[in-house]
């Protein structure tokens, strides 16, 4: 256990066991999938009709927005070039399906059906239409494990959408609201503020919704405030999601060459405290 915790030296064993185990897991998912498929099959025509109408309205709305955003993108690129700022990194997305939620009292993870053979990398964020769900923390050939936002001490650097205030959102365990830590009392926050990824860590692309503030407890004695928020994306509801194939930007300037002796960093998503034993 200690060897796995400190050095991750046992990954080959894990990969082999996983290779044997995954087919069995797929077999055992069959009853649930069959049940879901049959309940989908028997939805009424009325529901489908209604859903179709909603989808069309949404589609029209989105295509309008997309047209506008393309124009804005070009304008933004030109302005950035004028001001000599670094270009926004573009990235691809990969549709993934959440297979199951492994029973584990400590962590809150899901297993998805894409792995390194599909171009997924360690540290890639997983999102759905509403916002960020989590991050890939362990990767196999054809599957990967994703740590969800609710996972204890899972941190995402965010920015308040209203005023650009930077902070970090931390998970607080299953079923508990997320926390916004390390903020002074006087910081300008309101209930209902939307938190977007700030992108300063280089792991998450900027501008994705993460959470909404639901409760603020200001504590003047200790000059700190407890801020609680809930994830924007329904973390435990849907089976479909998108992996953002965003290349982690380790250097503040991509063009600056790294010094030969220094490795950029260890695996993304791992906290530095855990890698202490490796040096």
């Amino acid at each position, binding site marked *: 256990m200690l060897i*796995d915790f400190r050095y991750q030296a046992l990954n080959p064993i*894990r990969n082999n066991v996983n290779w044997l185990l995954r087919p069995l897991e797929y077999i055992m998912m069959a*009853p649930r999938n069959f049940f879901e498929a049959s309940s989908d099959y028997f939805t009424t025509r009325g529901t489908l009709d209604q859903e179709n109408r909603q989808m069309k309205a949404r589609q029209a709305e989105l295509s309008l927005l997309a047209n506008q955003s393309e124009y804005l993108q070009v304008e933004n690129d030109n302005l950035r070039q004028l001001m000599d700022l670094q270009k926004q990194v573009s990235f691809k997305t990969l549709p993934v399906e959440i297979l199951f939620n492994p*029973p584990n*009292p400590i962590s809150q993870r899901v297993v998805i059906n894409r792995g390194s053979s599909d171009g997924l990398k360690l540290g890639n964020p997983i999102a759905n239409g509403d916002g960020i769900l989590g991050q890939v923390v362990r990767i196999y050939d054809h599957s990967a494990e994703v740590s969800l936002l609710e996972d*204890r001490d899972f941190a995402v650097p965010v920015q308040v959408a209203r005023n650009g205030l930077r902070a970090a959102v931390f998970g607080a365990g*299953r079923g508990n609201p997320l926390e916004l830590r390390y903020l002074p009392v006087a910081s300008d926050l309101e209930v209902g503020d939307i938190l977007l990824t700030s992108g300063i860590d280089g792991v998450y692309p900027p501008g994705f919704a993460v959470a909404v503030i639901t409760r603020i407890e200001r504590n003047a004695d200790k000059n700190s405030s407890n801020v609680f928020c809930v994830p924007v994306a329904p973390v435990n509801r849907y089976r479909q999601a998108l992996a953002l194939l965003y290349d982690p930007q380790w250097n503040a300037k991509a063009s600056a060459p790294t010094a030969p002796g220094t490795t950029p960093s260890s695996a993304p998503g791992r906290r530095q405290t855990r890698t202490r034993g490796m040096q």
Partner: protein
Amino acid sequence: MIDFQSGYILRPVNPAFIYFSLFCALLLNLLPIGNYGWVPDWLILCMVFWNIHQHRYVGVVWAFAFGLIMDVHNSDLLGLHAFSYSLVSYIAISWHRRITALTVLTQAFHLLPIFLLVSLFPVLVHWVLSGQLYWWALTGALQAVIEVMLWPLATRILLAPQRRPIDVDHNRPI
């Protein structure tokens, strides 16, 4: 082997049935039910049963191997379940003489500490490694209680092949 419940001598066990039942228990553990603490660990129930009744066929090595598989499935530290399963199966094997002589309900109560140990082990290890104790994760104790309640059922199902009568007279049933 003597069945202490009925006093009759049981038929010899079929090793294929042992391994088949362990495999089925593993499959039941892989069911995508979700991350709930109370879902019973079928594998450890089956494993402890065979450790107590047929420790020559299912020993610590099997417990270790199945534990490793569960570690990978649960995305735990590699070795967490492997260690707890082997520890528990060692305890079960060393208690097997005492436990087989009891009635099924008393057996269940004697097995409560074993199931509690295996349910709470991940939480305790995490406590030692990171210094944080998750009180809400201790709901795993419920899992142990459910497993204890399932013990009479497991005895009935897993001993059924051995309780078949030795010679059946088809002409005169009963």
